[in-house]
């Protein structure tokens, strides 16, 4: 049962199809965990359907109908392969990660933190998986941009609350936090960050000698 959800604004933009692909992927991944948001998403799509019906129709030539009728028996494009095995991972992440996390390249940032960058083609957002060792702490930091986080495995706590698989967290650039992975299991999160250039700075701060990591 997820406790933390995307804002209504995000859900609305998602249903209207206007979120950038990296953010849309993160919201979608949340939907695959969260029945409540799926229900809202369904209703928001209904708004789209109702609007569609109210558009002023634009006439379509009879020959277009003929063209389509002639193509009906064309073989349908192959559905995406994969997802034959049952997995807890949302389908789109299985596609991006080639099924699971075991084949990813993880870039080690500190003893407790590794990052694996995934490509969504969205150049205005970094899309990455973070892996925090069980019980590991990430020193207090701010972000160069706004960040969406979705917990995929394990969990973490940030002093305000604790977060578990399916939980969605959005932090603006002003927020400061110092997440600590819950004990017992590594925490894997999906993060989507805008302003990737600032992210470089954020990443480089790991080299800052004043930052001490207290991994347990």
């Amino acid at each position, binding site marked *: 049962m997820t406790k933390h959800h995307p804002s*209504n604004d995000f859900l609305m933009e998602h249903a209207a199809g206007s979120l950038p692909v990296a953010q849309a992927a993160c919201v979608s991944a949340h939907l695959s965990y969260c029945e409540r948001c799926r229900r809202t998403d369904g209703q928001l799509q209904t708004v789209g359907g109702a609007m569609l019906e109210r558009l002023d129709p634009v006439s379509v030539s009879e020959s277009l109908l003929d063209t389509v009728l002639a193509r009906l028996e064309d073989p349908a494009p192959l559905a995406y392969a994969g997802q034959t095995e049952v997995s807890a991972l949302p389908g789109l992440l299985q596609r991006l990660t080639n099924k699971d996390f075991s084949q990813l390249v993880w870039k080690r940032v500190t003893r407790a933190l590794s990052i694996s960058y995934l490509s969504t083609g969205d150049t205005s957002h970094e899309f990455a998986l973070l892996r925090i060792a069980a019980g590991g702490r990430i020193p207090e930091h701010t972000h160069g941009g706004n960040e969406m986080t979705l917990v995929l495995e394990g969990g973490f706590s940030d002093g305000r609350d604790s977060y578990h698989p399916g939980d969605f967290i959005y932090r603006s650039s002003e927020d400061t936090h110092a997440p600590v992975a819950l004990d017992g299991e590594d925490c894997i999160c999906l993060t989507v960050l805008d302003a990737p250039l600032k992210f470089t700075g954020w990443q480089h701060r790991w080299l800052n000698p004043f930052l001490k990591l207290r991994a347990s």
Partner: protein
Amino acid sequence: MVAASCMLTGRISQVPRCGMVENKNDGEADSGRSSGKWAVPTGRRTDEWSECLVLIGKSNDRAAFTRFFRHFAPLIKAFALAGSSLSAAHADELVQEVMLKVWQKASGFNPEKAAASTWIYTIARNCRTDMFRRLQKFDTPLAADDLNIELEGEEPFTVLHTRRGSDRIKDLMGQLPPDQAQILAKVYMEGKSHSEAAAELDLPLGTVKSRVRLAIQKLQVQMDRQ
């Protein structure tokens, strides 16, 4: 396999392998079932277009498809041209793509879960997104369909709830004040983000957001207060 190296530095540093982690969360991932053919529900409100889709899905009914096409193709074309986003030629191409998908996917349509208009809206929205990306040579491994989480195997309560919501939303749509209807059209029909809509209408972002929220509230879409 997508690039997993650091995009900032282009370097791949140490490669600590992630041991396969145990799958928690067993509520999901039940995608094997439901290639379902659905009967038209009796004693429940249904509409002509849902019946068409059921006929297409059940028996590849070309006459039903033609009726469906004549009704929806002009609306899809209007959708394609909304905000003059696509040329007339591309709009026709979109109509073709959407209608072919209708034919291919109709067997998965469940009239108890969604209205025909909602179902085709989602297809059209995704096709248009993919077409934009193709035209802009935006290369992504994710098709818009990948980001579509279907209401699959939900509890009956949810289904009923969704269905009632759909009837109600249609009824309430006509009562929206013009400024709210205009914003919704920008967002849903033109596919503009809230900030793009704000820029085009020369309104503060906060105004756009609150108008969208008010409209959604008036349509009685159930959302959590935030």
